[in-house]
Protein backbone atom coordinates (compact mmCIF):
# COMPACT_ATOMS: atom_id res chain seq x y z
CA UNK A 1 0.00 0.00 0.00
CA UNK A 2 2.81 2.41 0.81
CA UNK A 3 4.41 1.90 -2.57
CA UNK A 4 1.07 2.59 -4.14
CA UNK A 5 0.65 5.71 -2.07
CA UNK A 6 4.03 6.94 -3.17
CA UNK A 7 3.28 6.29 -6.77
CA UNK A 8 -0.04 8.02 -6.57
CA UNK A 9 1.33 11.12 -4.96
CA UNK A 10 4.14 11.73 -7.40
CA UNK A 11 3.00 14.39 -9.82
CA UNK A 12 3.35 12.87 -13.24
CA UNK A 13 3.56 15.02 -16.35
CA UNK A 14 0.09 15.61 -17.76
CA UNK A 15 0.80 13.47 -20.78
CA UNK A 16 2.01 10.38 -18.95
CA UNK A 17 -0.55 7.65 -18.75
CA UNK A 18 -0.95 6.04 -15.34
CA UNK A 19 -0.85 2.27 -15.54
CA UNK A 20 -3.76 0.56 -13.78
CA UNK A 21 -1.43 -2.03 -12.32
CA UNK A 22 0.49 0.68 -10.48
CA UNK A 23 -2.51 1.95 -8.53
CA UNK A 24 -3.35 0.85 -4.99
CA UNK A 25 -6.10 2.16 -2.70
CA UNK A 26 -4.83 4.40 0.10
CA UNK A 27 -7.49 3.34 2.58
CA UNK A 28 -8.78 0.09 3.97
CA UNK A 29 -12.20 -1.08 5.16
CA UNK A 30 -13.93 1.04 7.82
CA UNK A 31 -11.74 4.09 7.15
CA UNK A 32 -12.24 7.03 9.49
CA UNK A 33 -10.53 10.43 9.26
CA UNK A 34 -7.48 11.00 11.42
CA UNK A 35 -6.31 14.57 10.83
CA UNK A 36 -8.19 17.57 12.21
CA UNK A 37 -8.99 19.16 8.85
CA UNK A 38 -10.33 15.90 7.47
CA UNK A 39 -12.43 15.34 10.60
CA UNK A 40 -13.94 18.78 10.09
CA UNK A 41 -14.66 18.03 6.47
CA UNK A 42 -16.36 14.79 7.44
CA UNK A 43 -18.52 16.54 10.02
CA UNK A 44 -19.75 18.97 7.37
CA UNK A 45 -20.28 16.20 4.85
CA UNK A 46 -22.38 14.19 7.26
CA UNK A 47 -24.86 17.04 7.27
CA UNK A 48 -24.76 17.18 3.49
CA UNK A 49 -25.48 13.47 3.32
CA UNK A 50 -28.46 13.89 5.62
CA UNK A 51 -29.82 16.49 3.25
CA UNK A 52 -29.18 14.36 0.19
CA UNK A 53 -30.71 11.30 1.84
CA UNK A 54 -33.89 13.26 2.54
CA UNK A 55 -34.12 14.86 -0.89
CA UNK A 56 -37.35 14.82 -2.85
CA UNK A 57 -35.29 14.22 -5.96
CA UNK A 58 -34.16 10.72 -5.01
CA UNK A 59 -35.48 7.74 -6.94
CA UNK A 60 -36.47 5.43 -4.12
CA UNK A 61 -37.21 2.18 -6.01
CA UNK A 62 -35.82 -0.28 -3.40
CA UNK A 63 -34.84 -2.99 -5.84
CA UNK A 64 -32.94 -0.63 -8.12
CA UNK A 65 -31.16 0.88 -5.12
CA UNK A 66 -30.21 -2.56 -3.88
CA UNK A 67 -28.86 -3.31 -7.32
CA UNK A 68 -26.69 -0.18 -7.35
CA UNK A 69 -25.47 -0.86 -3.84
CA UNK A 70 -24.60 -4.37 -4.98
CA UNK A 71 -22.44 -2.99 -7.78
CA UNK A 72 -20.50 -0.86 -5.29
CA UNK A 73 -20.01 -4.01 -3.29
CA UNK A 74 -18.48 -5.62 -6.36
CA UNK A 75 -16.20 -2.87 -7.63
CA UNK A 76 -15.72 -0.65 -4.57
CA UNK A 77 -12.42 -2.24 -3.54
CA UNK A 78 -11.59 -2.27 0.18
CA UNK A 79 -14.32 0.26 0.96
CA UNK A 80 -17.02 -1.76 -0.78
CA UNK A 81 -18.99 -2.18 2.41
CA UNK A 82 -18.59 1.43 3.56
CA UNK A 83 -19.80 3.30 0.50
CA UNK A 84 -23.37 4.48 -0.09
CA UNK A 85 -25.00 5.36 -3.37
CA UNK A 86 -27.92 7.75 -3.93
CA UNK A 87 -29.80 7.95 -7.19
CA UNK A 88 -31.14 11.44 -7.97
CA UNK A 89 -33.66 12.21 -10.65
CA UNK A 90 -31.64 14.69 -12.66
CA UNK A 91 -31.42 14.25 -16.43
CA UNK A 92 -27.67 14.82 -16.67
CA UNK A 93 -24.75 12.59 -17.56
CA UNK A 94 -23.01 12.79 -14.21
CA UNK A 95 -22.09 11.29 -10.87
CA UNK A 96 -20.07 12.56 -7.95
CA UNK A 97 -18.25 11.19 -4.94
CA UNK A 98 -18.28 12.89 -1.58
CA UNK A 99 -15.33 12.66 0.82
CA UNK A 100 -17.13 10.55 3.41
CA UNK A 101 -17.79 7.75 0.95
CA UNK A 102 -21.24 8.46 -0.38
CA UNK A 103 -21.86 9.04 -4.01
CA UNK A 104 -24.71 10.64 -5.93
CA UNK A 105 -25.57 9.29 -9.36
CA UNK A 106 -27.81 11.22 -11.67
CA UNK A 107 -30.56 9.29 -13.40
CA UNK A 108 -29.41 10.67 -16.76
CA UNK A 109 -26.22 8.64 -16.39
CA UNK A 110 -28.17 5.41 -15.97
CA UNK A 111 -30.14 6.16 -19.12
CA UNK A 112 -26.92 6.40 -21.15
CA UNK A 113 -25.25 3.20 -19.99
CA UNK A 114 -25.47 0.33 -22.43
CA UNK A 115 -24.73 -2.36 -19.88
CA UNK A 116 -23.61 -3.15 -16.36
CA UNK A 117 -19.94 -3.05 -17.29
CA UNK A 118 -20.25 0.61 -18.33
CA UNK A 119 -22.07 1.53 -15.13
CA UNK A 120 -19.59 -0.45 -13.04
CA UNK A 121 -16.83 1.58 -14.69
CA UNK A 122 -18.32 4.89 -13.57
CA UNK A 123 -19.00 3.54 -10.08
CA UNK A 124 -15.42 2.28 -9.83
CA UNK A 125 -14.08 5.63 -11.05
CA UNK A 126 -16.08 7.47 -8.39
CA UNK A 127 -15.13 4.93 -5.73
CA UNK A 128 -11.48 5.47 -6.65
CA UNK A 129 -11.72 9.16 -5.75
CA UNK A 130 -12.65 7.99 -2.26
CA UNK A 131 -10.13 5.15 -2.13
CA UNK A 132 -7.37 7.56 -3.12
CA UNK A 133 -8.51 10.28 -0.70
CA UNK A 134 -8.79 12.72 -3.56
CA UNK A 135 -11.21 15.07 -1.89
CA UNK A 136 -9.04 15.85 1.09
CA UNK A 137 -5.96 16.08 -1.11
CA UNK A 138 -7.66 18.47 -3.44
CA UNK A 139 -9.08 20.46 -0.53
CA UNK A 140 -5.62 20.90 1.00
CA UNK A 141 -4.21 21.81 -2.36
CA UNK A 142 -6.90 24.40 -2.83
CA UNK A 143 -6.25 25.96 0.56
CA UNK A 144 -2.54 26.09 -0.08
CA UNK A 145 -2.74 28.03 -3.31
CA UNK A 146 -5.94 29.90 -3.69
CA UNK A 147 -6.63 29.76 -7.34
CA UNK A 148 -8.40 32.70 -8.84
CA UNK A 149 -9.60 30.66 -11.78
CA UNK A 150 -11.05 28.02 -9.51
CA UNK A 151 -12.87 30.72 -7.60
CA UNK A 152 -14.32 32.14 -10.79
CA UNK A 153 -15.44 28.75 -11.96
CA UNK A 154 -17.05 28.16 -8.61
CA UNK A 155 -18.98 31.38 -8.82
CA UNK A 156 -20.22 30.36 -12.22
CA UNK A 157 -21.49 27.14 -10.75
CA UNK A 158 -19.22 25.04 -12.87
CA UNK A 159 -18.35 21.78 -11.28
CA UNK A 160 -17.46 18.36 -12.43
CA UNK A 161 -18.18 14.88 -11.26
CA UNK A 162 -17.19 11.76 -13.10
CA UNK A 163 -17.67 13.31 -16.45
CA UNK A 164 -16.75 16.82 -15.52
CA UNK A 165 -19.87 18.35 -16.97
CA UNK A 166 -22.56 20.46 -15.43
CA UNK A 167 -23.61 18.85 -12.19
CA UNK A 168 -27.23 19.73 -12.38
CA UNK A 169 -29.61 21.15 -9.90
CA UNK A 170 -29.15 18.89 -6.96
CA UNK A 171 -25.78 20.25 -5.97
CA UNK A 172 -26.80 23.80 -6.64
CA UNK A 173 -29.99 23.61 -4.73
CA UNK A 174 -28.83 21.51 -1.86
CA UNK A 175 -26.66 24.56 -1.17
CA UNK A 176 -23.47 22.71 -1.71
CA UNK A 177 -21.95 25.57 -3.63
CA UNK A 178 -19.03 26.05 -1.31
CA UNK A 179 -18.25 22.37 -1.43
CA UNK A 180 -17.97 22.24 -5.19
CA UNK A 181 -14.26 22.93 -5.09
CA UNK A 182 -13.87 19.42 -3.79
CA UNK A 183 -15.09 17.92 -7.00
CA UNK A 184 -12.88 19.91 -9.26
CA UNK A 185 -10.23 17.29 -9.39
CA UNK A 186 -7.04 17.99 -11.21
CA UNK A 187 -6.08 16.15 -14.36
CA UNK A 188 -3.71 14.09 -12.27
CA UNK A 189 -6.44 12.98 -9.87
CA UNK A 190 -8.85 12.14 -12.68
CA UNK A 191 -6.20 10.08 -14.39
CA UNK A 192 -5.52 8.23 -11.14
CA UNK A 193 -9.20 7.44 -10.69
CA UNK A 194 -9.46 6.25 -14.27
CA UNK A 195 -6.53 3.90 -13.73
CA UNK A 196 -7.66 2.48 -10.39
CA UNK A 197 -11.28 2.29 -11.57
CA UNK A 198 -10.26 0.31 -14.60
CA UNK A 199 -8.29 -2.09 -12.45
CA UNK A 200 -11.22 -2.54 -10.06
CA UNK A 201 -13.72 -3.46 -12.76
CA UNK A 202 -11.34 -5.72 -14.65
CA UNK A 203 -10.45 -7.56 -11.42
CA UNK A 204 -14.19 -7.93 -10.76
CA UNK A 205 -14.57 -9.56 -14.19
CA UNK A 206 -16.07 -6.67 -16.15
CA UNK A 207 -14.84 -5.76 -19.59
CA UNK A 208 -12.30 -2.97 -18.98
CA UNK A 209 -12.84 -1.46 -22.42
CA UNK A 210 -16.26 -0.30 -21.22
CA UNK A 211 -14.69 2.73 -19.53
CA UNK A 212 -13.29 4.25 -22.70
CA UNK A 213 -16.60 3.55 -24.42
CA UNK A 214 -18.43 5.57 -21.77
CA UNK A 215 -15.99 8.43 -22.14
CA UNK A 216 -16.35 8.31 -25.92
CA UNK A 217 -20.14 8.45 -25.50
CA UNK A 218 -19.87 11.55 -23.33
CA UNK A 219 -17.61 13.40 -25.76
CA UNK A 220 -19.61 12.46 -28.82
CA UNK A 221 -22.90 13.39 -27.21
CA UNK A 222 -21.59 16.89 -26.47
CA UNK A 223 -20.43 17.15 -30.07
CA UNK A 224 -23.79 16.08 -31.49
CA UNK A 225 -25.63 18.43 -29.17
CA UNK A 226 -23.47 21.38 -30.22
CA UNK A 227 -23.59 20.51 -33.91
CA UNK A 228 -27.38 20.47 -33.83
CA UNK A 229 -27.35 24.05 -32.56
CA UNK A 230 -24.59 24.99 -35.00
CA UNK A 231 -21.97 25.84 -32.41
CA UNK A 232 -18.74 24.55 -30.92
CA UNK A 233 -18.59 22.37 -27.84
CA UNK A 234 -18.09 24.73 -24.92
CA UNK A 235 -14.56 24.75 -23.69
CA UNK A 236 -15.07 26.48 -20.36
CA UNK A 237 -16.22 23.41 -18.52
CA UNK A 238 -13.95 21.76 -16.04
CA UNK A 239 -14.23 18.85 -18.42
CA UNK A 240 -12.11 20.68 -20.92
CA UNK A 241 -10.18 23.05 -18.72
CA UNK A 242 -8.87 21.09 -15.76
CA UNK A 243 -9.52 17.54 -16.75
CA UNK A 244 -7.24 15.58 -19.00
CA UNK A 245 -8.01 16.61 -22.54
CA UNK A 246 -11.02 14.50 -23.48
CA UNK A 247 -9.49 12.70 -26.43
CA UNK A 248 -6.29 12.09 -24.53
CA UNK A 249 -8.21 10.61 -21.64
CA UNK A 250 -10.14 8.40 -24.01
CA UNK A 251 -6.93 7.19 -25.60
CA UNK A 252 -5.35 6.45 -22.21
CA UNK A 253 -8.37 4.49 -21.04
CA UNK A 254 -8.37 2.52 -24.25
CA UNK A 255 -4.63 1.73 -24.03
CA UNK A 256 -4.89 0.82 -20.37
CA UNK A 257 -7.81 -1.51 -21.02
CA UNK A 258 -5.88 -3.38 -23.69
CA UNK A 259 -2.77 -3.52 -21.55
CA UNK A 260 -4.49 -4.62 -18.35
CA UNK A 261 -6.91 -7.18 -19.81
CA UNK A 262 -5.65 -10.73 -19.40
CA UNK A 263 -5.38 -12.45 -22.76
CA UNK A 264 -7.86 -15.28 -23.19
CA UNK A 265 -9.93 -14.31 -20.14
CA UNK A 266 -13.57 -13.63 -20.89
CA UNK A 267 -14.97 -10.46 -19.37
CA UNK A 268 -18.65 -9.84 -18.86
CA UNK A 269 -20.87 -6.94 -19.95
CA UNK A 270 -24.02 -7.77 -17.95
CA UNK A 271 -26.40 -6.19 -20.45
CA UNK A 272 -29.45 -8.32 -19.68
CA UNK A 273 -29.04 -7.87 -15.95
CA UNK A 274 -28.65 -4.13 -16.37
CA UNK A 275 -31.71 -3.69 -18.56
CA UNK A 276 -33.77 -5.75 -16.15
CA UNK A 277 -32.69 -3.65 -13.17
CA UNK A 278 -33.40 -0.41 -15.03
CA UNK A 279 -36.71 -1.54 -16.51
CA UNK A 280 -39.05 0.03 -13.90
CA UNK A 281 -37.74 3.55 -14.56
CA UNK A 282 -36.34 3.40 -18.09
CA UNK A 283 -39.36 4.95 -19.79
CA UNK A 284 -39.30 7.83 -17.30
CA UNK A 285 -35.59 8.37 -17.95
CA UNK A 286 -36.20 8.61 -21.69
CA UNK A 287 -38.99 11.10 -21.09
CA UNK A 288 -36.84 13.21 -18.77
CA UNK A 289 -34.17 13.42 -21.46
CA UNK A 290 -36.25 13.88 -24.58
CA UNK A 291 -38.56 16.52 -23.13
CA UNK A 292 -35.59 18.81 -22.60
CA UNK A 293 -35.59 19.18 -26.36
CA UNK A 294 -31.83 18.91 -26.79
CA UNK A 295 -32.25 16.94 -30.01
CA UNK A 296 -28.57 16.35 -30.83
CA UNK A 297 -27.87 14.81 -27.44
CA UNK A 298 -31.10 12.80 -27.37
CA UNK A 299 -30.56 11.49 -30.86
CA UNK A 300 -27.05 10.35 -29.96
CA UNK A 301 -28.30 8.57 -26.84
CA UNK A 302 -30.99 6.73 -28.76
CA UNK A 303 -28.64 5.69 -31.53
CA UNK A 304 -25.99 4.55 -29.07
CA UNK A 305 -28.49 2.37 -27.23
CA UNK A 306 -29.81 1.11 -30.56
CA UNK A 307 -26.39 -0.37 -31.34
CA UNK A 308 -27.71 -3.26 -29.26
CA UNK A 309 -30.86 -3.41 -31.44
CA UNK A 310 -33.86 -1.20 -32.21
CA UNK A 311 -37.10 -1.78 -30.36
CA UNK A 312 -40.45 -0.10 -29.86
CA UNK A 313 -39.25 2.03 -26.98
CA UNK A 314 -36.26 3.41 -28.91
CA UNK A 315 -38.28 4.10 -32.06
CA UNK A 316 -40.96 5.81 -30.01
CA UNK A 317 -38.28 7.92 -28.33
CA UNK A 318 -36.85 8.87 -31.73
CA UNK A 319 -40.36 9.94 -32.74
CA UNK A 320 -40.58 12.10 -29.62
CA UNK A 321 -37.30 13.81 -30.46
CA UNK A 322 -38.66 14.78 -33.88
CA UNK A 323 -42.07 15.81 -32.58
CA UNK A 324 -40.59 18.47 -30.29
CA UNK A 325 -38.57 19.98 -33.12
CA UNK A 326 -39.73 22.78 -35.35
CA UNK A 327 -40.59 22.30 -38.99
CA UNK A 328 -42.89 20.11 -40.99
CA UNK A 329 -40.23 17.59 -42.00
CA UNK A 330 -39.69 16.69 -38.36
CA UNK A 331 -43.41 16.24 -37.80
CA UNK A 332 -43.45 13.78 -40.68
CA UNK A 333 -40.40 12.00 -39.30
CA UNK A 334 -42.12 11.78 -35.91
CA UNK A 335 -45.20 10.21 -37.49
CA UNK A 336 -43.03 7.68 -39.31
CA UNK A 337 -41.19 6.67 -36.15
CA UNK A 338 -44.42 6.25 -34.18
CA UNK A 339 -45.81 4.09 -36.97
CA UNK A 340 -42.70 1.92 -36.85
CA UNK A 341 -42.65 1.82 -33.05
CA UNK A 342 -46.14 0.37 -32.74
CA UNK A 343 -45.15 -2.63 -34.86
CA UNK A 344 -42.98 -3.78 -31.93
CA UNK A 345 -44.56 -5.60 -28.99
CA UNK A 346 -42.69 -3.45 -26.46
CA UNK A 347 -44.06 -0.14 -27.79
CA UNK A 348 -45.27 1.92 -24.81
CA UNK A 349 -48.92 3.01 -24.69
CA UNK A 350 -47.81 6.57 -25.45
CA UNK A 351 -46.55 5.43 -28.85
CA UNK A 352 -50.13 4.46 -29.74
CA UNK A 353 -51.46 7.80 -28.55
CA UNK A 354 -49.04 9.82 -30.68
CA UNK A 355 -49.42 7.46 -33.61
CA UNK A 356 -53.16 8.11 -33.40
CA UNK A 357 -52.79 11.89 -33.07
CA UNK A 358 -50.46 12.01 -36.09
CA UNK A 359 -52.82 9.90 -38.20
CA UNK A 360 -55.74 12.16 -37.31
CA UNK A 361 -53.70 15.20 -38.31
CA UNK A 362 -52.92 13.58 -41.65
CA UNK A 363 -56.63 13.13 -42.23
CA UNK A 364 -56.46 9.35 -41.75
CA UNK A 365 -59.16 9.55 -39.14
CA UNK A 366 -60.45 5.98 -39.07
CA UNK A 367 -56.93 4.62 -38.53
CA UNK A 368 -56.25 7.38 -36.03
CA UNK A 369 -59.30 6.43 -33.99
CA UNK A 370 -58.26 2.79 -33.95
CA UNK A 371 -54.79 3.74 -32.67
CA UNK A 372 -56.26 5.99 -29.98
CA UNK A 373 -58.60 3.20 -28.93
CA UNK A 374 -55.61 0.92 -28.61
CA UNK A 375 -53.97 3.59 -26.44
CA UNK A 376 -56.98 3.79 -24.13
CA UNK A 377 -57.16 0.01 -23.93
CA UNK A 378 -53.52 -0.08 -22.82
CA UNK A 379 -53.78 2.92 -20.50
CA UNK A 380 -57.43 3.29 -19.47
CA UNK A 381 -56.50 5.58 -16.58
CA UNK A 382 -54.16 7.81 -18.56
CA UNK A 383 -54.47 11.42 -17.39
CA UNK A 384 -55.33 12.58 -20.90
CA UNK A 385 -57.98 9.86 -21.41
CA UNK A 386 -60.87 12.40 -21.21
CA UNK A 387 -59.40 14.42 -24.06
CA UNK A 388 -58.48 11.37 -26.13
CA UNK A 389 -62.03 10.03 -25.76
CA UNK A 390 -63.30 13.28 -27.19
CA UNK A 391 -60.86 13.02 -30.10
CA UNK A 392 -62.20 9.55 -30.86
CA UNK A 393 -65.81 10.72 -30.77
CA UNK A 394 -65.44 13.89 -32.76
Amino acid at each position, binding site marked *: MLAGAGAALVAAPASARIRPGSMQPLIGPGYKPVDTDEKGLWAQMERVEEEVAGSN*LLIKDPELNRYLQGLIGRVGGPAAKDMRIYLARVPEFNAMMFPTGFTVFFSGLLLRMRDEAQLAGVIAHEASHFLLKHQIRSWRDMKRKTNIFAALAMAAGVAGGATGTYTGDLVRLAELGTMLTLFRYSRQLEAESDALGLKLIADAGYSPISMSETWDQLITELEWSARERRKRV*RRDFSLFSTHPAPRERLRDLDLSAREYAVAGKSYERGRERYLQALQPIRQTLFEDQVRL*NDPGASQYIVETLAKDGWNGQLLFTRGEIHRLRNGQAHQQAAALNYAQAVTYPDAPADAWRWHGVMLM*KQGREAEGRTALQRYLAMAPNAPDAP*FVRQMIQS
Partner: protein
Amino acid sequence: MSRSKSLAILATLSLCLSACSSVGGAGGLNSPYNLVRAGQVINVGSGAMSVTAPRNWNRTERSLFTDVRWVEDWTLNGPLLDQLSFVAGLPHDKRLVRQEHKADRQVPKFRRDMTAPEVAALIETLYRVEGGSLDFRTVQLAPRSFLAAPGFQLDFEHLGGDEVWRRGRAVGAVIDGKLYLMMVDAARSHYFAQVLPDFEAMAVSAVRRR
Protein backbone atom coordinates in the same frame (compact mmCIF):
# COMPACT_ATOMS: atom_id res chain seq x y z
CA MET B 1 -24.38 22.07 -21.57
CA SER B 2 -24.40 25.24 -19.54
CA ARG B 3 -27.81 26.78 -19.47
CA SER B 4 -27.21 30.24 -18.20
CA LYS B 5 -30.72 31.42 -18.81
CA SER B 6 -32.44 28.52 -17.18
CA LEU B 7 -30.03 28.82 -14.27
CA ALA B 8 -30.76 32.50 -13.88
CA ILE B 9 -34.39 31.66 -13.68
CA LEU B 10 -33.72 28.80 -11.34
CA ALA B 11 -32.02 31.23 -9.05
CA THR B 12 -35.39 32.81 -8.50
CA LEU B 13 -36.75 29.29 -8.13
CA SER B 14 -39.71 29.97 -10.26
CA LEU B 15 -40.81 30.00 -13.83
CA CYS B 16 -41.74 33.32 -15.29
CA LEU B 17 -42.84 33.59 -18.83
CA SER B 18 -41.92 37.22 -18.89
CA ALA B 19 -39.16 39.13 -17.18
CA CYS B 20 -38.83 38.39 -13.54
CA SER B 21 -35.14 39.16 -13.46
CA SER B 22 -35.98 42.46 -11.89
CA VAL B 23 -37.91 40.84 -9.06
CA GLY B 24 -36.49 41.96 -5.76
CA GLY B 25 -37.62 45.56 -5.61
CA ALA B 26 -40.45 45.15 -3.16
CA GLY B 27 -42.75 47.98 -4.10
CA GLY B 28 -41.76 51.61 -4.40
CA LEU B 29 -40.40 53.37 -7.43
CA ASN B 30 -38.34 50.44 -8.59
CA SER B 31 -41.10 47.90 -8.28
CA PRO B 32 -41.44 45.65 -11.30
CA TYR B 33 -45.16 45.40 -10.62
CA ASN B 34 -48.21 47.45 -11.46
CA LEU B 35 -51.37 47.12 -9.45
CA VAL B 36 -54.43 45.57 -11.07
CA ARG B 37 -57.55 46.61 -9.14
CA ALA B 38 -60.47 44.31 -8.45
CA GLY B 39 -63.13 44.68 -11.12
CA GLN B 40 -60.76 46.34 -13.59
CA VAL B 41 -60.85 45.01 -17.16
CA ILE B 42 -57.30 44.48 -18.41
CA ASN B 43 -56.15 43.83 -21.94
CA VAL B 44 -53.37 41.31 -21.54
CA GLY B 45 -50.37 40.48 -23.70
CA SER B 46 -50.54 42.36 -26.95
CA GLY B 47 -54.16 43.19 -26.17
CA ALA B 48 -55.84 40.33 -28.00
CA MET B 49 -57.62 39.14 -24.86
CA SER B 50 -59.09 40.88 -21.83
CA VAL B 51 -59.80 39.59 -18.32
CA THR B 52 -61.42 41.02 -15.21
CA ALA B 53 -59.57 40.50 -11.92
CA PRO B 54 -61.79 39.48 -8.98
CA ARG B 55 -59.38 41.17 -6.52
CA ASN B 56 -56.19 43.18 -6.58
CA TRP B 57 -53.34 41.47 -8.43
CA ASN B 58 -49.81 42.43 -9.41
CA ARG B 59 -49.03 42.71 -13.06
CA THR B 60 -45.35 42.13 -13.93
CA GLU B 61 -43.82 44.86 -16.02
CA ARG B 62 -42.60 43.63 -19.34
CA SER B 63 -39.44 44.33 -21.18
CA LEU B 64 -39.10 44.89 -24.88
CA PHE B 65 -35.85 43.00 -24.89
CA THR B 66 -36.60 39.84 -22.98
CA ASP B 67 -40.31 39.26 -23.37
CA VAL B 68 -42.62 37.88 -25.96
CA ARG B 69 -45.27 40.47 -26.66
CA TRP B 70 -48.22 38.07 -26.62
CA VAL B 71 -47.40 36.91 -23.11
CA GLU B 72 -47.63 38.48 -19.65
CA ASP B 73 -47.42 37.35 -16.03
CA TRP B 74 -49.23 38.33 -12.88
CA THR B 75 -48.71 37.30 -9.27
CA LEU B 76 -50.66 37.58 -6.06
CA ASN B 77 -48.09 36.63 -3.39
CA GLY B 78 -44.90 36.83 -5.44
CA PRO B 79 -43.56 34.60 -8.23
CA LEU B 80 -42.01 32.04 -5.88
CA LEU B 81 -45.45 31.25 -4.53
CA ASP B 82 -47.84 31.82 -7.39
CA GLN B 83 -47.82 32.94 -10.96
CA LEU B 84 -50.53 33.60 -13.47
CA SER B 85 -49.65 33.78 -17.16
CA PHE B 86 -51.65 34.93 -20.14
CA VAL B 87 -50.93 34.05 -23.73
CA ALA B 88 -53.04 36.24 -25.98
CA GLY B 89 -53.06 35.08 -29.58
CA LEU B 90 -49.54 33.62 -29.99
CA PRO B 91 -49.11 33.25 -33.76
CA HIS B 92 -47.79 30.30 -35.75
CA ASP B 93 -44.04 29.70 -35.51
CA LYS B 94 -43.55 31.87 -32.40
CA ARG B 95 -42.25 30.82 -29.02
CA LEU B 96 -43.75 31.24 -25.55
CA VAL B 97 -40.44 32.56 -24.23
CA ARG B 98 -37.49 34.29 -25.69
CA GLN B 99 -34.48 32.00 -25.76
CA GLU B 100 -30.94 32.12 -26.93
CA HIS B 101 -30.86 31.11 -30.53
CA LYS B 102 -28.22 28.49 -29.84
CA ALA B 103 -29.45 27.20 -26.47
CA ASP B 104 -28.95 23.44 -26.18
CA ARG B 105 -32.40 22.99 -24.75
CA GLN B 106 -35.20 24.85 -26.44
CA VAL B 107 -38.90 25.32 -25.98
CA PRO B 108 -40.50 24.39 -29.31
CA LYS B 109 -42.32 26.94 -31.40
CA PHE B 110 -46.09 26.98 -31.45
CA ARG B 111 -47.64 25.66 -34.67
CA ARG B 112 -51.11 26.53 -35.85
CA ASP B 113 -52.10 22.88 -36.34
CA MET B 114 -51.22 21.81 -32.80
CA THR B 115 -53.73 19.60 -31.02
CA ALA B 116 -54.31 19.86 -27.27
CA PRO B 117 -51.91 16.99 -26.45
CA GLU B 118 -49.22 18.85 -28.41
CA VAL B 119 -49.88 22.14 -26.61
CA ALA B 120 -49.78 20.22 -23.31
CA ALA B 121 -46.40 18.76 -24.33
CA LEU B 122 -45.22 22.26 -25.23
CA ILE B 123 -46.12 23.46 -21.75
CA GLU B 124 -44.31 20.52 -20.19
CA THR B 125 -41.16 21.29 -22.17
CA LEU B 126 -41.40 24.92 -21.09
CA TYR B 127 -41.37 23.85 -17.46
CA ARG B 128 -38.55 21.37 -17.90
CA VAL B 129 -36.34 23.61 -20.00
CA GLU B 130 -36.97 27.05 -18.56
CA GLY B 131 -38.44 26.23 -15.16
CA GLY B 132 -35.94 23.55 -14.17
CA SER B 133 -38.68 21.05 -13.34
CA LEU B 134 -37.20 17.64 -12.66
CA ASP B 135 -40.51 15.84 -12.42
CA PHE B 136 -43.60 16.91 -14.31
CA ARG B 137 -46.84 14.99 -14.01
CA THR B 138 -49.93 15.53 -16.07
CA VAL B 139 -52.85 15.19 -13.69
CA GLN B 140 -55.52 15.55 -16.35
CA LEU B 141 -56.06 16.72 -19.90
CA ALA B 142 -59.73 17.21 -20.64
CA PRO B 143 -61.91 19.10 -23.12
CA ARG B 144 -63.08 22.54 -21.98
CA SER B 145 -64.32 25.50 -23.91
CA PHE B 146 -62.34 28.72 -23.65
CA LEU B 147 -63.25 32.08 -25.22
CA ALA B 148 -66.35 30.34 -26.58
CA ALA B 149 -64.16 27.97 -28.62
CA PRO B 150 -63.52 24.23 -28.14
CA GLY B 151 -60.36 24.03 -26.07
CA PHE B 152 -58.77 22.08 -23.26
CA GLN B 153 -57.88 22.14 -19.61
CA LEU B 154 -54.51 20.80 -18.49
CA ASP B 155 -53.89 20.11 -14.80
CA PHE B 156 -50.35 19.35 -13.77
CA GLU B 157 -47.91 19.08 -10.89
CA HIS B 158 -44.19 19.61 -11.04
CA LEU B 159 -41.18 19.35 -8.78
CA GLY B 160 -38.62 22.09 -9.13
CA GLY B 161 -34.94 21.95 -8.36
CA ASP B 162 -35.81 23.77 -5.13
CA GLU B 163 -37.66 20.59 -4.14
CA VAL B 164 -40.99 22.38 -3.89
CA TRP B 165 -44.00 20.71 -5.48
CA ARG B 166 -46.11 23.12 -7.45
CA ARG B 167 -49.48 22.63 -9.02
CA GLY B 168 -50.82 24.26 -12.13
CA ARG B 169 -53.75 24.56 -14.46
CA ALA B 170 -53.81 25.78 -18.04
CA VAL B 171 -56.95 26.54 -19.98
CA GLY B 172 -56.58 27.27 -23.66
CA ALA B 173 -57.74 27.02 -27.22
CA VAL B 174 -56.27 27.44 -30.67
CA ILE B 175 -58.46 29.97 -32.49
CA ASP B 176 -57.79 31.00 -36.10
CA GLY B 177 -54.39 29.35 -35.82
CA LYS B 178 -53.36 31.36 -32.75
CA LEU B 179 -52.85 30.18 -29.20
CA TYR B 180 -54.96 31.70 -26.42
CA LEU B 181 -54.06 30.43 -22.99
CA MET B 182 -54.32 31.20 -19.29
CA MET B 183 -52.08 29.34 -16.90
CA VAL B 184 -51.77 29.39 -13.13
CA ASP B 185 -48.92 27.79 -11.24
CA ALA B 186 -48.52 27.89 -7.45
CA ALA B 187 -46.98 26.07 -4.51
CA ARG B 188 -49.07 22.94 -4.06
CA SER B 189 -49.61 23.53 -0.38
CA HIS B 190 -51.96 26.44 0.36
CA TYR B 191 -51.17 28.82 -2.52
CA PHE B 192 -52.68 26.86 -5.39
CA ALA B 193 -55.99 26.60 -3.56
CA GLN B 194 -55.83 30.31 -2.77
CA VAL B 195 -55.35 31.49 -6.36
CA LEU B 196 -57.43 28.90 -8.21
CA PRO B 197 -60.82 30.61 -7.65
CA ASP B 198 -59.37 33.86 -9.03
CA PHE B 199 -58.01 31.98 -12.02
CA GLU B 200 -61.38 30.40 -12.68
CA ALA B 201 -63.19 33.72 -12.36
CA MET B 202 -60.76 35.32 -14.80
CA ALA B 203 -61.05 32.41 -17.25
CA VAL B 204 -64.81 32.94 -17.27
CA SER B 205 -64.35 36.70 -17.67
CA ALA B 206 -61.87 36.30 -20.55
CA VAL B 207 -62.91 37.89 -23.83
CA ARG B 208 -61.13 37.59 -27.14
CA ARG B 209 -60.63 41.01 -28.67
CA ARG B 210 -58.98 39.93 -31.90
